[in-house]
């Protein structure tokens, strides 16, 4: 998928609206902009702007950017809050609430200094509102229903209009029946590009929101009253193994923007690199205030953007470092079976359940390898295959793929990285020397100069 392909093929209604915008920017509109919609759960790379101020659009993982039109000097968008069916991964559909056909909603992109007018049509069965998280705007545009303005009743359209006084990384979500509407998937990114194209430029700019759902195995709709026991940890309402990779050309300057709308923090860890946070939802971070990291903790209700130079070729994991967040739906009450002899038990259970298989006596990796029938509309707890075997992952996990010779607007999956000879861990087949071992729990001081074997 690349920008030119998208331009050529169009993205349905969105592309049509986009074409109108580009050709007739000066036209005055009296009606509201067409409400673009998409039914695709795949990454749709937005085209670069051809008129006006130049900027590098963000690539929303498994998402898209909302088409706009210019109405005089005002950039107009049309968000539709509505029930959607989101394909969270192949084999699993979630019945959520979202915007314009998907959850998470489309990314709104605009430029610092622009005035935006955002029509919000409510096709939900209850009132809603939109809070523009992090944006500086008039109090009456802040989207807290009841506080900033009345909630948008079902079937009605409200208009938000404000100036974008600063660039940065922001998001939007309802602030009416907020717990339910966010548990149902209503959220989206709002990116304001700097007016100065030379300010903080990057070659690739990825963005995603962290969202958590509790969809019981075999069901389709989230349990909205859940507070802590979520079982689906997503990037943009998408789970491993079907989160699109972050495809990067070697040497690119890359930014990854992450917002957290779950109810817990997520230490997002990226392999192969060290990097620095350059932006939060509060604004750009001054260079002297940055420090190097390999895991960025994204607090609840906060956003972080980090940058790195993509020097190291390879397939590099990017994931939340909470190991339960790289699992799909699982049972948390399972006893540990490791080390148990289940042969007798297995025979006894099979008298009642002939299809019973013994699992877990050597760990849980059997799950990744065996493909047994599990409840409908459920992705296995650990799954996914790589070039060297099962990945045994789920949830918040994807891969940053750094390659040579990737075209500037090409984001299509280059396949698995082939490790150059001699750069891959290999099996030792010789004799094993006696290995160092310690059976004492006491602190053991190492003699100066280190302790040599043999």
């Amino acid at each position, binding site marked *: 998928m690349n920008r030119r392909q998208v331009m050529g093929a169009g993205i349905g209604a969105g592309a049509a609206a986009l074409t109108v915008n580009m050709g007739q920017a000066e036209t005055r509109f009296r009606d509201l902009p067409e409400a673009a919609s998409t039914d695709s759960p795949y990454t749709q790379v937005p085209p670069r702007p051809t008129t006006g101020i130049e900027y590098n659009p963000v690539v929303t993982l498994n998402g898209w950017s909302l088409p706009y039109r210019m109405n005089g000097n005002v950039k107009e968008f049309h968000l539709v809050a509505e029930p959607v069916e989101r394909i969270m991964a192949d084999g699993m559909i979630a019945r959520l609430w979202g915007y314009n056909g998907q959850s998470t909603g489309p990314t709104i992109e605009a430029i610092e200094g622009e005035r935006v007018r955002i029509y919000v049509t409510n096709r939900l069965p209850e009132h809603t509102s939109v809070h523009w998280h992090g944006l500086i705007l008039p109090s009456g545009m802040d989207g807290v229903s009841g506080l900033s303005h009345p909630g948008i009743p079902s079937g009605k359209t409200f208009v938000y209009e404000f100036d974008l006084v600063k660039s940065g990384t922001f998001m939007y979500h309802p602030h009416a029946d907020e717990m339910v509407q966010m548990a149902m998937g209503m959220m989206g990114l709002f990116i304001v590009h700097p007016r100065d194209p030379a300010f903080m430029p990057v070659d690739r700019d990825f963005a995603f929101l962290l969202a958590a759902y509790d969809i019981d*195995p075999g069901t389709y709709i989230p349990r909205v009253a859940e507070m802590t026991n979520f079982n689906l940890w997503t990037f943009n309402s998408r789970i491993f193994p079907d989160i699109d990779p972050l495809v990067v050309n070697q040497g690119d300057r890359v930014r990854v923007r992450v917002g957290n709308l779950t109810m817990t923090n997520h230490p997002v860890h990226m392999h192969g690199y060290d990097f620095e946070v350059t932006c939060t939802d509060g604004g750009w971070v001054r260079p002297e205030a940055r420090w190097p990291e390999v895991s960025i903790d994204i607090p609840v209700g906060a956003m972080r953007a980090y940058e790195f130079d993509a020097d190291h070729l390879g397939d590099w994991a990017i994931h939340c470092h909470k190991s339960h967040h790289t699992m799909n*739906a699982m049972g948390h009450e*399972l006893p540990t*079976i490791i080390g148990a002899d289940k042969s007798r*038990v297995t025979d006894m259970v099979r008298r009642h*359940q002939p299809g019973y298989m013994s699992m877990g006596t050597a760990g849980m990796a059997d799950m990744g390898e065996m493909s047994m029938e599990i409840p409908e509309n*459920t992705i296995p707890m650990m799954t996914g295959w790589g070039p060297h075997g099962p990945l045994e992952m789920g949830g918040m996990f994807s891969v940053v793929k750094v390659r040579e010779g990737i075209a500037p607007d090409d984001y299509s999956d280059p396949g698995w990285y082939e490790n150059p000879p001699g750069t891959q861990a290999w099996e030792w087949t010789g004799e094993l020397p006696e290995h160092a071992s310690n059976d004492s729990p006491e602190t053991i001081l190492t003699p100066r100069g280190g302790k040599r074997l043999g």
Partner: protein
Amino acid sequence: MGALLLLTACADTATMSKARDERAGFATVAGISRQATGAEAAWLQTPAERQAHAQRVRAIVQGKTIGAEQAVQVALLNNPGLQASYADLGMSAADLWETALGPVPSVGISVSGLVSGDVSRSVEGTVASSILDMVTKKSRTRAADLEFRQAQLAAAGETLALAHETRRTWIEAVGAFEAAGLVGRAQGAADAASELAAQLGETGALSRADQAREHVFTAELAAEQAEARLEAQLAKEKLVRLLGLWGTDTDFYVPDSLPALPGNVPNRANIERLALENRVDLAAGRLEMEAVAARYRLNGQTRMLSDAEVGAGVEIEREDGETERSPVVDVAFSIPVYDTSGLISRRGKLEYQRSANSLAQSAINARSEARSAYTAVTGKHQIALHWRDQVLPLRREIDEQALLSYNGMLTSTFELLNDAREGLESQLSAAEAKRDYWLAEADATAAIWGGASDNGEDE
């Protein structure tokens, strides 16, 4: 009585002839006369006859799994109390057997156990009709001996009561073994959980408290299983008593489970008519009226009134032939009305009225009992069907989904086994509902032939 004779002819000849071949060794009994005489009663006392009788019973039961019909056969043949009342009437069990059923089948009339719907096929039906058949035969030669005929009807009533109790006891015994089997399966699931708990105790994954929780459940279930087994044994022992068995003859088995539920219950809209035609207590009531008429030398019958008419107060003493038709009923039980014009004694009139009214009351009760029995059969059938067709499929669905959930490491083996155990509880309830249906069937048989009022209803 005509209906009864007809029913006798309805015996299942195909099964009978099959049985006959297998019973070649019992050719000696084939020639025994159908006529019951005092001489024959004495003959029953001979050691040879006793031995033949014992052999006959042994052939049916020893080492065999016996069905409900076979149990009833043996009870009628072998129950000492019943034999005594037969002997009083000058009938031997062998006579009765030959009269009613032909050669004793060693495999039984309906091996499967219970026959739904076709009441004419029940052993007690054929046996009772034979007794009554003999009564009619007797009446030709000893027409005046109404007392004797009444005694015979009483014997027929006893026969039916014993048959009914035996049938119920067989159903209860088999039902108890079926229940014990299901509790045993639940125990198996609990054993598996207990075994897993012990394993996890060894690896250090389960605390002693949690292990004990699994073990105590298993231990409690073991007590329940012992209870269920004991109940089954006691139920079978009750059957043994009714069959009059002892010694090695008690080495017989009953099936592990009751026959499957029939898809539908035959329409028995005619159950009232069947009851009015066949109940031996009603036949006895008629004879009672005949006896009263004979005692007071009343002239011949002038007309017939229905039980409903008598119940509604139609004048039973009117001499003229005119009748006021009152309640319209589909099926009438006719009560003979005698010409009482010559009757001077007030006491005679009262006695006659009493017997006529009491017969009408018995007939009305018989109607109600028949309707109740039919309602019970259809109701119990619906309930058992509900368990089988609604509850159990849902349980199977739960079991299937439980396995998928276990496969997905969403639930543990313990939960899987717990679902299996709960499923077995539903199976237990379904089996109980099935047993209740078959008991209702047995009661319906009794409502048609009689024998229910003394036994069976006391639960």
